[in-house]
């Protein structure tokens, strides 16, 4: 009976299949449902009650007033929600058009207000018409919108939940598979027993030399295999060792969750605004906190896009801004610095070893390289990570491929002309300028 030769095949196959399945069973996450985004973000402003047009008022408010006033919070000037109800409309017209005139005329209310607000002079807006002011006041009189709580699906999709359910499915599958294997075993053994009981005998397969023995006796094969194995081991060991000390993808948890995605991405802030020393120093510099406060004096809460699934809610971001205030010693209520400073201990992500000299200004100012070339899509990074390997090979490749940026640089004029003649090229690479010499980076 020929068939018996393969009687163990099913069980073997099943084992192989199991291995195969497990190998490729990387976690497959269920797609998160994105149903609740439409109603969550846009706050519906209720219809206007006053005389003015709320929408027009909002535009005017943002253009003229928002630098110093907020609706619900004291900033440089007082909070303005409901201001139309507090004061006489005519008085407000006068005040907004030229507050100082009013103060100097000795208006008691105006003087009181001026004193209350640290004698900070409000800009005069003589260009605003009474209608404009009505519109603005209409906007400020609009009731405070209910805080929109992002609906979090109950029992639904946290990241970890998805992972667990997948694992359960996988586990169940594996169990089913195991059962199948066991059943197959049982079936074959039953069949065997039946065959025996029926007196069907099958010849014992003649004892062949086991394949491992044959292999072991073939010295050439052993030699080739071991060389191959050694080489393969060496290859992988080399690859493994080469990544020691390479921290590509390093994304440590920072003391303040600073999102480059929000700042550089959504708000389009130029990298050099905060990392200003990148233009003139070897260090790009971590911005000092007073640079943050240039904007965050007025931005105390986050109103942009949120990602509640990852925990990046408005509350989360607002809490992070509060951490900044705590570090820099900013009293939000009083709108002044307390002097109690707690320097922030950021975790450094890009660490070049001491023996490698790198100068940002050379690359940023002289070469005009985009920050993203080395630092990757920073504007998309919610959490900053090391994009490039920062290995010497990586540096050198770029120096080999990149042409020197000459545009309007008198320093290069003569050298470049002579060198390009020497090498017979129009544009020189950094390497041809001597950018691969050891001492250019190691001293």
């Amino acid at each position: 009976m020929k068939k018996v030769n393969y009687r163990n095949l099913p069980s073997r196959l099943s084992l192989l299949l199991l291995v195969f399945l497990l190998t490729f069973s990387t976690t497959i996450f269920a797609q998160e449902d994105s149903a609740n985004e439409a109603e969550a973000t846009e706050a519906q402003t209720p219809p206007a009650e006053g005389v003015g047009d709320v929408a027009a008022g909002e535009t005017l408010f943002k253009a003229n007033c928002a630098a110093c006033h907020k609706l619900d919070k004291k900033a440089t000037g007082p909070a303005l929600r409901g201001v139309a109800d507090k004061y006489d409309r005519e008085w407000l017209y006068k005040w907004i058009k030229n507050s100082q005139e009013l103060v100097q005329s000795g208006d008691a209310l105006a003087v009181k207000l001026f004193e209350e607000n640290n004698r900070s002079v409000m800009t005069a807006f003589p260009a605003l018409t009474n209608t404009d002011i009505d519109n603005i006041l209409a906007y400020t009189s609009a009731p405070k919108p209910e805080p929109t709580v992002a609906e979090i699906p109950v029992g639904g999709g946290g990241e970890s939940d998805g992972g667990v359910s997948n694992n359960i499915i996988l586990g169940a599958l594996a169990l089913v598979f195991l059962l199948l294997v066991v059943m197959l075993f049982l079936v074959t053994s039953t069949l065997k027993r039946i065959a025996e009981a029926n007196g069907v005998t099958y010849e014992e397969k003649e004892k062949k030399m086991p394949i491992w023995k044959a292999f072991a006796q073939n010295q050439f094969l052993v030699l080739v295999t071991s060389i191959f194995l050694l080489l393969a081991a060496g290859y992988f060991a080399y690859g493994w060792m080469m990544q020691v000390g390479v921290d590509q993808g390093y994304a440590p948890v920072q003391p303040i969750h600073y999102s480059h995605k929000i700042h550089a991405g959504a708000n389009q802030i130029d990298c050099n605004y905060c990392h200003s020393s990148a233009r003139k120093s070897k260090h790009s510099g971590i911005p000092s906190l007073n640079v943050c406060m240039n904007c965050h004096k007025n931005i105390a809460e986050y109103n942009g896009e949120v990602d509640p699934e990852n925990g990046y809610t408005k509350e989360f971001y607002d809490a992070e801004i509060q951490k900044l205030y705590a570090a820099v010693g900013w009293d939000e209520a009083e709108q002044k610095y307390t002097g109690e400073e707690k320097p922030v201990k950021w975790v450094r992500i890009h660490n070049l070893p001491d023996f490698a000299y790198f100068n940002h200004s050379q690359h940023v100012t002289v070469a005009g390289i985009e920050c993203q070339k080395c630092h990757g899509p920073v504007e998309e990074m919610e959490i900053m990570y090391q994009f490039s390997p920062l290995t010497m090979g990586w540096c050198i490749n770029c120096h080999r491929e990149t042409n020197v940026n000459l545009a309007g640089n008198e320093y290069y004029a003569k050298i470049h002309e002579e060198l390009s003649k020497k090498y017979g090229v129009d544009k020189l690479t950094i390497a041809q300028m001597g950018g691969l010499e050891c001492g250019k980076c190691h001293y």
Partner: protein
Amino acid sequence: MASNKKYWKSVEELNENSSIVETLQQNEFVEEIPTDKFLGDKNVLEATSTTRRDFLKYVGFTTAAASLAACEGPVIKSIPYVVAPDEIVPGVANYYATAMADGFDFANVLVKTREGRPIKIERNDLSKMGGVNARVHASVLSLYDAQRLPTPLINGEEASWEEFDVAVAQKMNEMAGKDVVLLTQTFASPSTTKLIKEFTAKYPNVRHVIYDTVSSSEALDAFQSVHGTRGLADYDFSKAEVIVSVGADFLGDWQGGGYDAGYAQGRIPKNGKMSKHIQFEANMTLSGANADKRIPATPGQQIEILKALTGGSAVGLPPAMAEAVSNAKAQLQKAGSKGVIITGLPNVAAQKAVLSYNANSEVMDATKPRLTAMGNSAEVQRVMSAVAAGVVKGLITVGVDPVYSFPDNDSFVEGYKNLEMSMAFAMKLDATASLAQLVAATPHYLESWGDLQMKKGSFSLIQPTIRPLFNTRQFQDCLLKWTANPKNYYDYIKETWASVLGGTSWNQALHDGVLLSDASVETDTTASPTDQISETLESNSANGALSSALQEGDLWLTLYTKTSLGDGAQANNPWLQEMPDPITRTTWDNYVTVSAEDASEMGLENNHVANGGLNGSYVNVRMGDVVIENVPVIIQPGQAKGSVGLALGYGKKEGIQEEMQTGVNAYPLYKDFSSVQKVSLEKVPGVHEFACVQLHNTMMGRDIIRETSLEIFNTKDAEVWNPMPMVSKDHQEIPVTSPDADLWEGFDRSVGHHFNLSIDLNACTGCGACVIACHAENNVPVVGKEEMRKSRDMHWLRIDRYYSSEETFENDFEKKDNISGLGSSLSEYGEMENPSANPQVAFQPVMCQHCNHAPCETVCPVAATSHGRQGQNHMAYNRCVGTRYCANNCPYKVRRFNWFLYAENDEFDYHMNNDLGRMVLNPDVVVRSRGVMEKCSMCIQMTQLTILEAKRDGREIKDGEFQTACSSACDKGAMVFGDVNDHDSKIYELANNNRMYHLLEAVGTKPNVVYQTKVRNTSEV
């Protein structure tokens, strides 16, 4: 055959019936091991869950886990400013102009700061004063001295300044009516002078006495008696044609130093002319080493020489010396108003004679005297004896350490301890401060405000470059407080300067650091010296030590200050301790210098031992009752017979780290604050181990330093005095620089920058400022005395000093050329190893020569050293595996191997081993680790920065912008650095002029460091 011997373990075994022996024979252990108790109890055994195997498993796993955990990379924190100062950009250096004035060294400097830390001292080019010597360069490290006083002390207890003010006020009230002396260094500060006057006005019982640790009192007295004001005549040696120095080391610390830059200017032959310098001296000094003619003369002879030079008649000079004197006299006469005589003799009459001789000289400027030394020895002497006698009841010391440096030490110390009030303003707990009741911790000059008038009409400002590191308050602020002045010292200076500034703004003056102004401000005054005034050299009766003849067996002692340590104020500075003395090339020591003849008479020896060290005998130096024991001896070629020398400033024991407590204190011999004394030496047993970095002192007739005389230089072609070495190819002599003689393919260096460094051996005086500047710029480690002795010094830049074996180097050549045959070469080469009794001396700074065909590069197995096209020989430390092949193959011996980890290693407890000292490190240069080779990089970090700045500004680089640490430190113009591809540059001219030669040109290494042949003005009239 087995031994029959029986070994006894104790006496007890003798007793045959001893029960103890019996028991011990049975038992392996004295006390029974409770194995049964443990193993026998089955319950316990079974209850323990840990079996032996488990235990081993646990050990294995934990070890593995620990090592795995250790593999994780470190987390590095970055902490930015909360509010960043406007002027600080991390990674960019700021420079501030300030000035150093520690009472001994006065210099206008620029301070380089990084991220708010001063890391290097540079010269201030706007200043004409000079004096930025090795000590000034090293002073930045003294700022980060771990031994500094962190707070004021009251009776040894730490106190706050409020408590201190209260204590002082109380003390001052108690002292009302009693004699209190305010003993200070020379401040040369208009504001401080004014302030002290206000203080003494408030406390009339306090009188101000200025004490210069190393005195120039006689010169001051002479100047005062001639010109009416106290000061030191200023000299501009660049104008001199003939300089005759009688015992004045004016290239060293003579009268405050700082004269070397002007001197060097006149030494570079221009239009066939250069100055002529004749030196009469006892010790071999820098001045003598640079002189065209040097005549060793004891101080006793010197005074006779001076008499003869200034128009009198000399008595008792040996004929050769008399001839030299008359020769010098003739030369001076010929030079007329361009001739000058200077003297360092501690004698008012001698100083007066010189002043009157120079009255018509263009070189001397008496109208604008230097004000950097003001002390009056006689007055200090009176204070000293008054304290000892208990007449003075209170002593306030500022910036001086009399307990350490007063000659009559024991009685003064007794008196000092018994004072009713003793207060010391000190940076460290030095000898005086450690005995004082009140110790005011003062800041370093880099943390202080101040003003200076170093020379009449030359003003400087001192500004802080870092916030005080410790709870210190400067002397002036204390005085303001104690005189109930609400101002701080900064405002006080501004007020004083209102008259000084003239049309200049305060900000401009502060930016420049220096200001020339004709404003007259108050200067320190001292009662005009009473005695000695009318004395002349001829009718000399009160010459102190110089007056009487030597006793039998006595020797003249000339006390001097070393280039490295000066008066000893910075003795705790490892850079300075490790800096080789320019003359003896010895580090970490002071010693008696003795002439070879005297040494052999006394049986004193110097010898080289097998491990490459220098050993020397010990002597006791005796002067009357004062004996200094166990002073090591160095046999100094050129030392006048019958004279010895000893350096001040060593042997400090208080406020100084143990490693730095080197040498012997010579101040007890500084009797009457006179640098010349009579002593006797007596050999004592013992051998001193020196840390000397140059054991071979002669050139053996080779042309390592090329030298010629002015006459030959002017009259002969360059091939005669600066020949190109020839090699033979196909039996034809061709110059070694010809391409045919070259093994290598030349590299085209005509494009881009190509750096060369020119070293003018005529202008180099060997002062060593470059050595320390290199130290500071390149984070060169300090290795300590033991390692120095093993020649494991790490200096990237050394200044070799060579003595001639014959009278002159010229004669050495002849002698070598005339050697023929085995017998002659055996004996005469041996002789040439010994320097002459009065040798010619030459200095040669040697650093990596940055050879275009570098022998080191070809032997490196890992290509750690390679050549850049800008001419620099690069060294990639992280690539180096430490085979040291390169060092072995370097013909110049300039490569330095890190035998140990010198940073963060307790075995090398110097500045790199503490957080404070590490603040001085240059962040642009890596700190090398153990097992790698290092060497001069031609300051590639500086040249690269210059290039980068030009690129950023989009401009070409001008000549002079490229600098190295050494070239910018050299105020003599001896080192010029630049781009030879810029044909308008100074370096291009120097690299192509006829004095240029390469070191060991015959080797064919094509170095990028070029030397300028030394020219000596040896022509007699």
